[in-house]
Structure formats: C-alpha cells, structure tokens
C-alpha cells in the first residue's frame, strides 16, 4: 500500500504520560503537532527530560500515544497488525552502541532485522553485502562487535537499519558516546544516506554543531514544541537557547560575544566559515 500523503510521519495532538505519573502533573509530551516530509533531515534538540527520546519511541511504535495519534506512512502506530511495517519504515539507532548489537558477528547483526522479516537466506545475504558495501563495512563483516570502535559499532547499527530499506532513520543521540572521528564518520554516513538515498532523518542531538546541517530544527522543552524552523533562525536565537539551558554552535556563541563588543556582524551566522568571512570583510572595510 503506497501512502499518497506528502508526509512520511505525522503526529496529531500527540500526548504521552509515562505510567505511574499523575496524569495532569507531568506529561512527557503534550500537544505535539508535527509533520515530517519525505527525505527531510530534522534535528530535535532540547534539554534533558524534554521528551525527545519519548517522541522517537512514539514514531517507532515502541510506545503507543496516550492522546492523539502518530501516522507513519499513513499507518497508525496503534494498529497491532501493522507494527512490523511501521518499524520497517522507521528504523531506530540508539545512544549506546554496545547495547544495540545483537549478534556475535557484524554480518549477522546487519541481518537481524531481515531475519525478523523472515526473508529467504539468499536474499538476506545479498542485502547484507549490498549494505556493507554502501557503508564501507565489508572488511568488518566477520568481526565480533566487541572488537569494533564506537563509531564502527554505530555504523553497523545504521547498516542493520538500512538493510530493511527504511523511509526514515530515527537517531537518539547516536554520537553521544563517541570520540571525534567516530562522531564525524557517523554524521557523514547519515548525511550521505539522507542526500543520496532520500531517506528522512530525525536526529536527536546534544551537539548544536550536528544540528547545523539539518533542514529543520525543532526545540522541545518540558514535553512541548517550543520552536521550529531552519537552522539559521533557530540556532542563531542565542537568548532562547540559553534560557533553555542549551548552547548554540561555536560560531553563534562567538558571534554573540563579538556583537556585545561592538562588532557589526550580520545575523544568522551559524557556520564557522561564515563567521570568518564576515570578520574578514569587516577587517577589509576598516
């Protein structure tokens, strides 16, 4: 069944209360209206406990909404018979690379989702090889996961999701436990998939630098959607970010300090390169 709507994921008046919480006192999420387009790169930022992870789990049908509904490719996530389909469309990458690899070798781990789809062995093998080739993991196929670096583990996790041909990849702070190279590799892998394969990405992150490349940024606070817009607008609003306990990208923070000292910098500088250009042109003018 092909979904004709232009949105990949739609959340309508979504609310979620964790069991045991008083219903009105502290909703994990409330009043969320959100539509994710096909092939969109969406960054989700917000302080701890703002409901980012909960939102991802709702999109993956790991949680069922308490109020409102979530539609993935037009399928409601509460439809028990179609949960497998929802999870195939929306693959999820978790924060801890160690705790999401199931199998004893990389190839078997990439195959795990396909095995759950009960595909024939030959087809699984072909898909695993194709995905490993795409992500440059061929040399690791027979390695056990505990011998991989953190970045490699996350890329194996991405390969496992990718093998199921998802329409969207949900990432819950996938780089939080990685070193610089691992972080760069993972982000480049995901951006490449978004760009070349048109796979939508919803990326929960603590690093403003990673949100810079998104098509759209959403800020959550205390379970509510506080702001959304393109990165130039959202990330350059330093006062809002700071009031939520968040930080802007380095360029934004630096530009804010420079403006305080009287430098006449244009608004909406979010890339370091842009900041350098503006400073150089100021220098030339004076």
């Amino acid at each position, binding site marked *: 069944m092909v979904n004709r709507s232009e949105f990949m994921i739609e959340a309508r008046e979504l609310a979620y209360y964790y069991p045991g919480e008083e219903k009105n006192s502290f909703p994990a999420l409330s009043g969320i209206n959100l539509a994710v387009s096909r092939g969109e790169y969406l960054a989700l930022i917000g302080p701890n406990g703002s409901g980012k992870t909960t939102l991802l789990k709702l999109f*993956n049908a*790991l949680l069922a909404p308490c109020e409102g509904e979530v539609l993935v490719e037009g399928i409601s996530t509460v439809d028990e018979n179609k949960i*497998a389909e929802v*999870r*195939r469309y929306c*693959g*999820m990458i*978790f924060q*801890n690379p*160690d*705790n*999401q*690899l*199931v*199998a*004893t070798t990389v*190839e*078997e781990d990439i*195959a*795990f*989702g*396909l*095995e*759950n*789809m*009960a*595909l*024939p*062995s030959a087809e*699984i*093998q072909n898909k*695993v090889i194709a995905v490993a080739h795409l992500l440059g993991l061929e040399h690791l196929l027979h390695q*056990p*996961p*505990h*011998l991989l670096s953190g970045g490699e583990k996350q890329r194996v996790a991405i390969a*496992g*999701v990718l093998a*199921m041909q998802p329409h969207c990849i949900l990432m819950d702070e996938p780089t939080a436990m990685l070193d610089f190279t691992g972080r760069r590799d993972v982000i480049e892998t995901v951006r490449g998939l978004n760009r070349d394969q048109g796979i939508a990405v919803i990326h929960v992150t603590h690093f403003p630098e990673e949100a810079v490349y998104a098509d759209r940024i959403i800020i959550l606070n205390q379970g509510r959607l506080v702001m959304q817009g393109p990165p130039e607008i959202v990330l350059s609003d330093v006062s809002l970010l700071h009031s939520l306990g968040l930080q802007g990208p380095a360029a934004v923070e630096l530009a804010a300090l420079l403006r305080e000292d009287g430098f006449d910098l244009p608004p909406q500088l979010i890339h370091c390169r842009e900041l350098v250009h503006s400073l150089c042109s100021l220098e030339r003018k004076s």
Partner: protein
Amino acid sequence: MSRSITLGQYFPGQSLVHQLNPRMKLISLLFVLALLFSLRSYSGLVALFFIALFLIAKTRVPFRYFLRGLRPVLFIAIFALVIYFFFTSGGIVLLRVGFITVESEGVREGIFIILRLVTLVLFSLLLTLTTTPLSLTYGLSYFLKPLRYIGLPTDEVAMIMAIALRFIPTLMEESQRLMRAQVSRGADFESGSIFRRAKSLVPLIVPLFVSAFRRADELALAMEARGYRIGAIRTRMHEDTFFPRDWVVLAVALVMLAASLTLGL
C-alpha cells in the same frame, strides 16, 4: 586485553572437520561415543584411537590444545588405573607387594579403560575445538525443537544463548574496568583468605549486575525496534546446509557402530 578473550574452546580453521555441518558433527559424535562403549577388542579401540589422531592432524589445531583438554581427565585416569591394576585378578602375576598383586588381566583392562577414556575426550574435543559456540548452540537447539510441542520456547532459548555469547566479552571488559576502578580506590582483590577474596568481589558483582540489567533493558528495546517479536517466524542468514561430505561422515560413523555391534569387535 579484550582481544585475548576467546569464547569456548573454538580454534579457527578451514579444515574439513571445521566445515562439517554442526548438527552432523553432533550426531556423529554421539554414534562414535556409543561405538566406544560397545567396543570390546583392543584392535578395534586402537583403530578408533588412530582415527581420532588422524582427524586431529587433519584439523591443523595445535596438539597442545588437545593435551590441555585431556588434563582434567588425568586424575580420573590415574585413579582408574590404580583400581584396575590392583583389584582385578586373572592371568599371570606380574608384581607382588605384600598381599597386593598386580596381575596381567588387570593391566590389560586398566589400559583398555584409559585408552577408551582418552579417545572419548579426543573425539569430544574434535567437536568443541572446530565448531564455534554459536553454531554449537544452534545445532543443539535444533535437536531440542521437538520440545516445542510441550511448550518449551526453543527458538527463544537459542536466541538467549546466542545473546549470552555475544555479551560475554562485553561484560568481561566491563568487569575489568570496574576492577581497575576499585583497585585505584584501594580495593584489594588478590590477598587474604579465599573467604576474604570472595567478599571483596561483592563491590564488583553488584555494579556488574546493575549494568547487565540496564543493558538487557536497552537491548530488548533495540531488538523490538528492529522488528523482533517473540513467537514470530524468523529465518536465518546462514541456514546450515548439508553437503554430501556430511552424509559420508555420518554413514561412516553408523557403519562402524553397526559393525562393532554385529561382529562383536
């Protein structure tokens, strides 16, 4: 450090013995063990012993791995030897110490028993040294499948065992990290009586358990997110297939067993 952690006894290789189907290896081993206990003649047993040595040579697994595997049975072997030497009568008297005599029949039977024991262990080691723990697990779970009809979730049990194998190195790394963290704060795991040492492990085991439970929780979530459902039909990337060579090995084991039983070798 973590690289030196090996699972089970598996020694990687490309030999024919390595490549045999694990299920076939298990059944063949069963037949060979039955054969070992049905053999009555020295010639048959010695022949089987040499077959074991021949297969060991074929695997290209260093022989010291087999010797290491034999070490635990050394004590039993010596014990059996003593019993047979001194307490079996018959044949000519070889040695007389006071009222105890060693007679030729005892020596004959003692050596026979030990040769049988050693051959038994060698054949078992042939299985465990050339088969990965994972294939062994799946091979065993295949034979447990009939138990599903009495309500035992055999596929899930196999999955649990496979995950346990996957996490052994991870948890070992973690315990080493915890140990170093405790040692850096003055903990002492090495000195004192056994009781003291066991007690000093408590601060290690508690956090290890806590983290194992947290891992299990996250892993369950990740598995669910990738479409794993209990009771659902799954396939496997590498279905183990039978090649003619597997049937040949099985046939040879069967024929040997049948020959021994009918001819009374």
